[in-house]
């Protein structure tokens, strides 16, 4: 038995090494060179940044929007006691009640930090964002518009946008239903959430994404976080119907999402 265990252990190590080796694009030098070539920011005829192109934005899973491991700069989240209590509860139970586990929409701003591609389509009066994530949602950002007086609460809220110069798309969103989480680790959000997102594209492959979170129910003041998302040329958005076979709920040890 000891010999078998040893063989298995060595095999396991090799498999881990093999996985990491495969994860490196260096396996295909020509493709890697092409992928690493820095192409300039694409622009529309009016000079504004074009966030589209033949491909999709492919985020990594930003599990913790305040942790340097995933975001550009660590954030000391300004919790109110109610926010910290809820956050600690979610950490203590391993995020078992995460709405994403129930195939509910990740919401804003979380969609940008879930590992499902998205596409940005710019029209003269609106920007449409197509999210593959649960379950292939769309989001409409009305440009140069005012918020409604009393928007109906929703998962993605009501978004209006404007440009700062030609390089920065600013999206302001309110009208949330209070059921989303900001990230996997469970930074909370209420129906008082107000999100300001700033999108830049310094080169063809890079989206610099910044979100400012304001939620007086859970935080003492607004806090800002940012991370980069890579463009994946050649990919398309695919159908993703999260609920078609969600067996995980049977094993998550919970009955209702919170």
């Amino acid at each position, binding site marked *: 038995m000891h010999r078998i265990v040893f063989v298995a252990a060595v095999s396991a190590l090799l498999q881990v090494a093999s996985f990491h080796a495969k994860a490196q694009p260096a396996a295909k030098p020509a493709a890697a060179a092409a992928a690493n070539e820095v192409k300039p920011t694409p622009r529309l005829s009016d000079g504004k940044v074009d966030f589209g192109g033949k491909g999709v934005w*492919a985020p990594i899973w930003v*599990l913790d929007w305040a942790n340097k491991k995933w975001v550009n700069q660590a954030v000391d989240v300004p919790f109110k006691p109610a926010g910290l209590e809820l956050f600690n509860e979610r950490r203590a139970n391993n*995020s078992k009640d995460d709405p994403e586990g129930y195939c509910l929409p990740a919401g804003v701003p979380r969609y940008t930090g879930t590992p499902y591609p998205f596409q940005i389509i710019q029209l003269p009066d609106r920007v449409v964002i197509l999210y593959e994530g649960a379950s292939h949602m769309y989001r409409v950002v009305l440009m140069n518009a005012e918020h409604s007086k009393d928007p109906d609460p929703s998962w993605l809220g009501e978004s209006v946008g404007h440009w700062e110069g030609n390089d920065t798309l600013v999206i302001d969103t309110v009208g949330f239903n209070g059921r989303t989480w900001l990230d996997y*680790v469970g930074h909370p959000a209420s129906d008082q959430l107000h999100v300001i997102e700033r999108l830049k594209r310094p080169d063809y492959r890079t989206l610099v994404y910044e979100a400012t979170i304001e939620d007086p129910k859970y935080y003492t003041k607004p806090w800002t976080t940012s991370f980069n998302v*890579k463009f994946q040329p050649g990919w398309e958005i695919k159908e*993703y*119907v999260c609920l078609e*076979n969600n067996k*995980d709920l049977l*094993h998550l040890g919970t009955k209702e999402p919170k």
Partner: protein
Amino acid sequence: MNAKSLIILSAIAGLLLAAVPVLAHHSFAAEFDSNLPMTATGVVTKVEWMNPHTHFYIDVKDDSGKVVNWDIETGSPNALARRGWTRNSLKVGDVVTADLFRAKDGSNLASARNVKLADGRKIFAGSADDGSPDSKGGPTGTKY
């Protein structure tokens, strides 16, 4: 090969932790135990190429010769497809070997890492790596 099929529980605990997986749409830690890795070889009995996770089922013979059917959870069909899988990569009757983490609730459910297919190819089957070339590969080695 079938006669020698075996499950090694816990024996390689720690060694696979460098690649602790997360799943794209729900908590890994709430459902699976990163301290319960195992490697299993078995015969595919069913494939569900469906969202939010592809599942396949394998008959695995343990040391005593008893055959147990395991439910193996992998990434979403889209995530697997972008990594080179197709819906025909696994077929009923194939003999496959998978690196796994067991479910916390003690059921015969496990989350897959690498799967060695019947044709010899070994493909990552989890969701931690979203496939983008410069992905950080998920929360490797963290408590999440």
